[in-house]
């Protein structure tokens, strides 16, 4: 009950935030422009893929971290009241992740709705795009919570948040290339599969690419992936991995939040 109250308060607070509005407007403008001038639906979805995989995690993790540092006084105030730490934490996370996820859905989904290009053959790819975006939002806000609770210093926290984003979008792929180069002489399909599943951004990228005929370009490894994710087990592993990326950092953050001396 208390969690819902905190959540509602936060939603009201966030509504006033110009950040969120700007995020939604930017997504709206970008998606609309891509649909109008980008040469049709499938290509727009492919271009949006990069936005979802790079931009959404960045905004989620940076905005989330900044927001929590900003809300420090508010949290301390509430903690002085008879409010359970667990429900306060749940309310805070829900109040931040939900608006970001909904903002993303509106910003990308609405242009498809009003241009009427999101149906038919594109529906599967669009659904995958939206689902990936929402899941990445949840994952990276959870990471933002963890980061902001681990670092007392605001500047350090922000740096760490950007580092988390950098690791997931850039450094991790560099490691994959290194691993692939180091073990050229071995069959790499299964290790690759494992490595990709472990990173939410890469997982989202591959799942999205498999929705398009571009998947044929990914060669034998791509075919292995396609077969794996085509099975129920593969789908369960993929969603499980993303859920774990959300629940893991969140659980850690929650434990820290409960024991933290503010």
């Amino acid at each position, binding site marked *: 009950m208390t969690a819902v109250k905190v959540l509602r308060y936060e939603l009201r607070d966030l509504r006033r935030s110009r950040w969120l509005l700007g995020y939604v407007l930017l997504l709206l403008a970008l998606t609309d422009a891509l649909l109008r001038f980008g040469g049709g639906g499938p290509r727009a979805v492919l271009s949006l893929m*990069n936005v979802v995989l790079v931009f959404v995690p960045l905004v989620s993790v940076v905005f989330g971290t900044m927001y929590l540092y900003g809300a420090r006084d508010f949290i301390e105030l509430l903690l002085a009241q008879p409010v359970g730490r667990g429900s306060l934490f749940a309310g805070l996370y829900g109040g931040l992740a939900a608006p970001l996820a909904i903002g993303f859905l509106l910003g990308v989904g609405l242009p498809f709705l009003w241009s009427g290009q999101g149906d038919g053959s594109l529906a599967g790819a669009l659904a995958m795009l939206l689902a990936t975006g929402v899941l990445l939002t949840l994952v990276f806000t959870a990471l933002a919570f963890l980061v902001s609770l681990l670092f007392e210093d605001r500047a350090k926290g922000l740096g760490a948040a950007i580092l988390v984003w950098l690791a997931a979008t850039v450094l991790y792929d560099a490691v*994959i290339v290194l691993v692939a180069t180091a073990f*050229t002489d071995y069959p790499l399909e299964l290790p690759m599969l494992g490595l990709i599943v472990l990173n939410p951004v890469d997982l989202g*990228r591959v799942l999205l690419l498999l929705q398009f005929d571009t998947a044929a370009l990914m060669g034998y*490894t791509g075919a292995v992936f396609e077969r794996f994710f085509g099975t129920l087990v593969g789908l369960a592993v993929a969603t499980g991995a993303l859920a774990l990326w959300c629940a893991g950092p969140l659980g850690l953050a929650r434990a820290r939040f409960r024991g933290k001396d503010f």
Partner: protein
Amino acid sequence: MGSAVLMFALILAAAPPRRIVVAPGGPVPTVTAALRLARPGDTVVVTAGIYREPRLEVRVPVTLLGAGDAVLDGGGAHEVLTIRADDVTVRGLTIRNVGTSFTDDRAGIRIDGARGCVIADNRLLDTFFGIYAERADDCVVSGNVIEGRARRQTTSGNAIHLFYSTGFTVTGNRVSGHRDGIYLEFSHRVSIRDNESHGNVRYGLHFMFSDSCEYRRNVFSSNASGVAVMYSRSVTMVGNRFEDNWGPAAYGLLLKEIKDSRIEGNLLARNTVGLFAESADRLVVERNQFLRNGWAVRIMANATDNSFRWNRFEGNTFDVATNSQGSSPSTFAENYWDGYAGYDLDRDGFGDTPFRPVRLFSVIVEQNEPTLILLRSFFLDLLEAAERVMPVLTPEALVDSRPLMHWRVS
């Protein structure tokens, strides 16, 4: 009945015999009977009806003409028509239902050791092999529609199959649903023009050991791979379209062990690999359009002295990929690349800075195929940008030093 046929034969023998009309219920009810009656130069007119007869063998130079909807049915059990005489014409017939065989290469129409035959405007449906020429020369195969229902390579035949057959002309045929649309083996000086080959489970057109052939203005679409030219020399490929050959191992044009050939004015669009060249030497590749392929050109280091000039590269994921490091055994000059970001200060139509069509990612992939899974990764985009500014890993010699600013049809 027998005497009636005999009488008819006598009448034919008396008057200068020219036309034998086959009609169900008529004096000559079967094609078999008509062929027994026919003498050199005769015309056998097959009128509408379905003829289920044993294998027909043509041993004298006659013209077989379908009038109306004349259907020769193999009953799923045997070859339909075998031609063993020169100068035979088969026109306007429908031949169907030959049936798959694993022991012999049955065909709708077989030309066996004959020359000067014309196979035109026939429809062949569900014939294991459509038209099969063996040690035949200087025949014309034109305007036929050959449709099969092939699912796998091992249980299907080729629509048009030429074996040790020289000087053929193959024009205006529409072939689909076979193993290869058109297959040539040890067949020289064959001209293949204006055909359409689509939906075949292996290649739209397949050359093996066939020199001095040409193919022009054909359309190869949605085959497992478009055209494979192997172990041949002096092949002319002009004005063809290679489209939608899309799949994990699909090529628009696959070249292997081919020398001294010309590839000009073709359109290669939406193929996984547009042009693949392995051990191909002295090819002239000019004025072709490579549009929206996965790889426009994949050229192996053992392909030497090939010249790529005035081609258009647009919307491809990779323009050129190669496994050669450092040196480039082939030359690229004066092509149009949509990825070119240079300038043209003297306004001569050519960019002032060179263009390197080999992307860093394609270099990594060539050495290490599994990294393809990083397609469209942000990290690789960053690396790419860095490599553009300061090339380290991409082959230095593979460069177009005079890239075209605009592509104009010439």
